[in-house]
């Protein structure tokens, strides 16, 4: 293989580079236009406030919402915390039960666990083996005292798209608040909040070529959804979220979402073609398993288990590619992915998984290089693996009795 200076970035679900157009839009608000948007007594504040409101319109437009329904936060983690804790606390007199999915992001799961500690009850549903939620099982999990449901739009590890429209309809008919973590969905799937029965939706800028440290929460106005504020002071953001607004970051998010709205149709087809090319390239190899449904999936994601190759050693073996074995937040640990475990994958396959996530700056040459590299290195690693040797000798590894150490 030829050696390249910079690894090829195939980890767009961990974070994305800020689009140069976004960076260009942000810089003036870091330098000459640095006023505090809350300083309403002078022009420095006014122009910042106007920029913030323009960005709010752009974020709303991408998801077909009203700008008044968008609340700025520091990112999807804060949005998820605010939505779930805020709704549970506000509607606690109606009931104490919440429903979510085992494959949600930690920001949702850890928030749910926190609510359990203060007296709420949470049902964590298993997805099907393709990663999707079964609607009949979902319906069966609802109780008369269910107040909040939280299901992510697009899974961060396997890229599957949940049936948000159907779940929303069920929730609306049952009078249940429906929260959707859409951090991985913006710019990848069409989101129409006029049509979807979603009450709360979390967004992040840095997954869609915007800056880190800024996100938003959609809070439906018709019918009106109420939340208990989690941060107080200053009364910014309809009293739901206080704190000085980071103008440059907000402007960046607005510009990133504008670009996403205008370019996603064309961009996603190009990325789909690249993803399919990557898939075709590695499917020629033996013992390769795609994790998660391929049809109901964003074009950007390919999550594959290479049986008989340990994921971390594989990542070390393909340093020329920047990929991850799970979500960024947990990739520093050696635990197998809880998402793949929830799909029913055994430890070995969960351990041997690689998440490839493609994006705006991925090229065909990148993909061809990745395919050739993977083929060579995986063969090398398997050649060193006694398990692979046993498998090739026709031994059923499930019948082997391992000696305890």
């Amino acid at each position, binding site marked *: 293989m030829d050696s390249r200076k910079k690894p090829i970035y195939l980890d767009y679900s961990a974070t994305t580079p800020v689009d140069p157009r976004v960076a260009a839009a942000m810089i003036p608000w870091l330098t000459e236009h640095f006023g505090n948007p809350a300083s309403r007594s002078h022009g420095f504040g006014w122009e910042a406030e106007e920029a913030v409101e323009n960005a709010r319109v752009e974020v709303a437009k991408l998801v077909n919402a009203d700008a008044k329904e968008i609340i700025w936060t520091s990112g999807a*983690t*804060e949005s998820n*915390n605010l939505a779930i804790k805020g709704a549970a606390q506000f509607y606690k007199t109606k009931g104490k039960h919440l429903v979510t999915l085992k494959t949600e992001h930690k920001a949702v799961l850890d928030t749910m666990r926190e609510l359990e500690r203060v007296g709420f009850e949470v049902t964590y549903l298993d997805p099907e083996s393709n990663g999707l939620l079964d609607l009949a099982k979902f319906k069966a999990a609802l109780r008369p005292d269910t107040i909040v449901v939280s299901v992510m739009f697009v899974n961060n590890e396997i890229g599957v798209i949940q049936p948000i429209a159907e779940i929303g309809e069920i929730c609306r008919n049952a009078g249940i608040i429906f929260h959707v973590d859409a951090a991985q969905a913006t710019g990848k799937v069409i989101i129409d909040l006029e049509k979807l029965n979603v009450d709360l939706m979390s967004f992040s800028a840095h997954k869609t070529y915007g800056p*880190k440290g800024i996100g938003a929460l959609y809070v439906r106005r018709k019918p009106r959804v109420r939340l208990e504020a989690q*941060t107080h002071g*200053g*009364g910014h953001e309809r009293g739901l979220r206080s704190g000085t607004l980071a103008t440059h970051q907000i402007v960046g998010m607005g510009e990133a979402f504008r670009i996403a709205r205008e370019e996603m149709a064309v961009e996603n087809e190009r990325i789909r073609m690249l993803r399919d090319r990557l898939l075709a390239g590695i499917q020629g190899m033996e013992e390769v398993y795609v994790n998660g449904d391929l049809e109901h999936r964003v074009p950007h994601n390919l999550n594959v288990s290479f049986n008989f190759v340990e994921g971390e050693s594989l990542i070390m073996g393909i340093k020329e590619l920047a990929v991850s074995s799970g979500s960024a937040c947990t990739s520093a640990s050696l635990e197998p992915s809880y998402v793949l475990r929830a799909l029913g994958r055994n430890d070995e396959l969960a351990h041997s998984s690689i998440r490839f996530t493609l994006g705006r700056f991925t090229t065909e040459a990148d993909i061809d290089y990745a395919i050739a590299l993977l083929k060579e290195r995986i063969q090398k690693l398997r050649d060193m693996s006694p398990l692979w040797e046993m498998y090739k000798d026709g031994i059923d590894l499930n019948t082997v009795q391992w000696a305890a150490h």
Partner: protein
Amino acid sequence: MIYLDNNATTRSTSKVVEATVAYLTDCYFNASTSSAGVTGADRPRLHAAAAMKKLVNAEEPDCFIFTSGATESNNWVLTSLRRCGNLGKVVVSSIEHASVLEPALDLRQWGFDVVETPVDSNGVVRIDQLQQHLTHDCVLVSVMAANNETGAVQPIREIGELIRASCPRALFHTDATQAVGKMSVDLRAGWTEVDLASFSAHKFHGPKGIGGLYMRPGIEIHPMLLGGGQEDGWRSGTTNTPGLAGLAIAAEEAASSNYDAVGRLRDLFEARLKATWPDIHIHSQGVTRLPNTSFFSLPGMAGVEMADALAAEGIIVGTGAACSAGAIRPSRTLQSMGVAHEIATAGLRISLSRFSTLQEIEKLIDTLGALRHSLH
């Protein structure tokens, strides 16, 4: 444009901007991935923690947990009490920023006894009054290090010693948003009894959207934002690498800046004001203040009108806390100090930066003179 509203926000320096931008498009990687050491995405946080340690003389870089800013830090400290299991008394000063006062008052519905302790006519917490509230059932005392409006510096050392003597188990939090980067702060001399301190980068020429909480070694509070386990589990959310890179430079630059020079400029400004208008009220002038802040009232002049008129002349000043400037009401701080309504509504706040010049001050004085003449 002459910008004299630096307690509301400051302009990022060119080095800060440069550092921030580098992590937008070039080193854009996620600091939580196992490759962060290779990509360099781990550097901004390390740099920021080291720079903050130096700026406020903390024990360890590990003492700093980074957040989206001081509002989050303040809310985090106050709301964490709900989960610690022991109800008790919470004491805050009557001049706290809304991001301390509001979450404190919210604790009442969770069963806490929340007390606002008063300030004297100079805007300094009254130690005799505070002493009475420091009973054994106190769980938290929160007093800001320096007031955002008057600049009055609070007796943090004295309050800390009082807390340790009267209610040693209580946490001592200070909202140091206006102090950090503008005056000398030493967590190992003077501030030795402070357990928790909030700060924000955009108040000392860093970017908006990044700040943090200092936690004294051995002090723990329950996390507020849950999820990916960033910041060692203390604060989840993807690490804001551009913000931290900017904060690091801002903290370094502040540490090597000359706070006294700003104070001399402010004192000169006030001497001229007094010479021109003997009837002027300079709030908190009798006590130690932030060297950059001058909050004064010219009787008969509405502060908001003056600020608007100055803005029309290209001079940006404040009238009180930026967050409540949408409503025309007298500053809460001045009310707490017992300042008469007509004086309080005349309040005008000048907050300098280390980049402010004598020429800017002279222009302000000339313009104020012309305005007072025409508006009076």
